[in-house]
């Protein structure tokens, strides 16, 4: 049995033994109460989700069916230590094509929810959530863009009611969780245009 898995290397490879001490009994129950949890156990590993997945095409360590199986086995720590739970492109091809009605994209998102409850987050999601908490928008609208709107014939951009957004995200506990993150996965170098 391997010890604590480094990032990106969580594949339970063929012949590997899973120790009973790794199995988290409550994890599966928590997951079953989140989106995708209903049909989680119906997965019989046909792999149509893997062949439909654009991310799996280029990242051999990323296999939706394997994430689902690891979740059913309760391998919480391995999943939480992995970058894979942050790699779903949310294209939803997997859940359209699953013959059993399993929703891998929803399940992966729900695993990420549970990781976040324990203070684990990918940097890209942490930054997006921080933007939402501070500005009410995922992408900040730069002042220069706001000024340019009139010039090109666009009306003034409506203001976000940031007080209400903050109040909501405080009530749901998001604000506190965000400030209490214990482990941040990834680096923030990768920025799109």
């Amino acid at each position, binding site marked *: 049995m391997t010890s604590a898995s480094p990032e990106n290397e969580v594949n339970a490879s063929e012949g590997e033994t899973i120790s009973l001490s790794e199995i988290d009994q409550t994890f599966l129950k928590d997951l079953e109460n989140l989106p995708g949890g209903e049909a989680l156990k119906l997965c019989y590993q046909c792999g149509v989700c893997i062949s439909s997945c*654009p*991310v799996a*095409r*280029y*990242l051999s360590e990323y296999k939706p069916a394997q994430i689902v199986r690891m979740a059913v086995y309760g391998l919480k720590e391995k999943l939480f230590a992995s*970058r894979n739970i*942050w*790699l*779903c*492109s*949310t*294209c*939803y*091809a997997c*859940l*359209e094509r699953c013959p059993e009605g399993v929703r891998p*994209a929803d399940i992966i*998102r729900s695993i*990420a*929810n549970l990781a*976040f409850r324990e203070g684990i*987050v990918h*940097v*890209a*999601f942490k*930054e*997006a*959530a921080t933007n*939402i908490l501070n500005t*009410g*928008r*995922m992408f*900040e*609208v730069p002042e220069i*863009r706001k000024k*340019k*709107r009139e010039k*090109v*014939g*666009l*009306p003034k951009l*409506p*203001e*976000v009611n940031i007080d*209400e*957004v903050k*109040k*909501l*995200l405080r*009530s*749901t*506990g*998001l604000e506190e*969780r965000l400030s209490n993150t214990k482990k941040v996965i*990834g680096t*923030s170098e*990768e*920025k*799109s*245009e």
Partner: protein
Amino acid sequence: MKYAFFPGCLSPSRIPSYELATRRIAEKLGIDLVDLEGANCCGYYLMSLDHLSALALGVRNLSLAENLGLDILTICTGCFSTLKETNDIFKENKEKQAELNKLMKSIGREYKGSVEIKHLAKVLLDDVGLEKIRGSIVHPLKGLKLAIHPGCHLVRPSDHLHFGDPEDLNVLRELVKVTGAEVIEYPDEMACCGFVIFGVDKDASLKIAGDKLRAIKSSGADAIITFCGFCTLMFDRNQPIIEKFLSEKYDIPVLLYPQLLGLALGIKPEDLGIDENRVKPKTVFEVLMEEE
């Protein structure tokens, strides 16, 4: 036809041309867009961190539209799918509904569940109708060969979005054909652009986008037509980055659907923000000049 307009945050932040072109075609086709004062993020990114927080942000937006007595028209596929999913959960899950309304009450709001969320493409197809659009075309774009990239969140998950067949973009073909252009088919039309994972694995994201650009280039299309700001960022604004990374050359322009329709409706390219495009749509302009 009157809607609460929900442009999302990507368009005002990075692609103002999407909003601009939408407003211009809306004027031509009699679609009245009412700004949604005080609206916030749809909740998309928070779905991955805290489902309840995402739903709360979404329901707050829906309550604002409900106060105006209007359905929502959005141009962002991310907002479209997130708000649709939120609305479905709110209406179907009574426990969640109670939890969300308690949260709404804490900010002095309430949502009853009366709002419908429509993407611009859906409004054009169902509410304006192809006949009316056909009758408004002044510059048929004859001779233009176009590939369509729908964007995942316009069609999937189909049990929430109900936007045609999740494996076939037939309904969108009709919207493009009505401009007089020809639709070119290519392999894997429904596949993802890769944008969402850019911040997690940039290389994989660029390879996924490269697959689509390569397939479209080989199909002989003059341009790609998009319905999503994220896909547009990926295919147009990031095209030079993808070319450099994969040592390939595509030089294929990307037009957002309202930009394409706007040209066919006789709106000037500068009023549709086409000057913002990174890859200049030269062939498109040539076809327009031949018309004149």
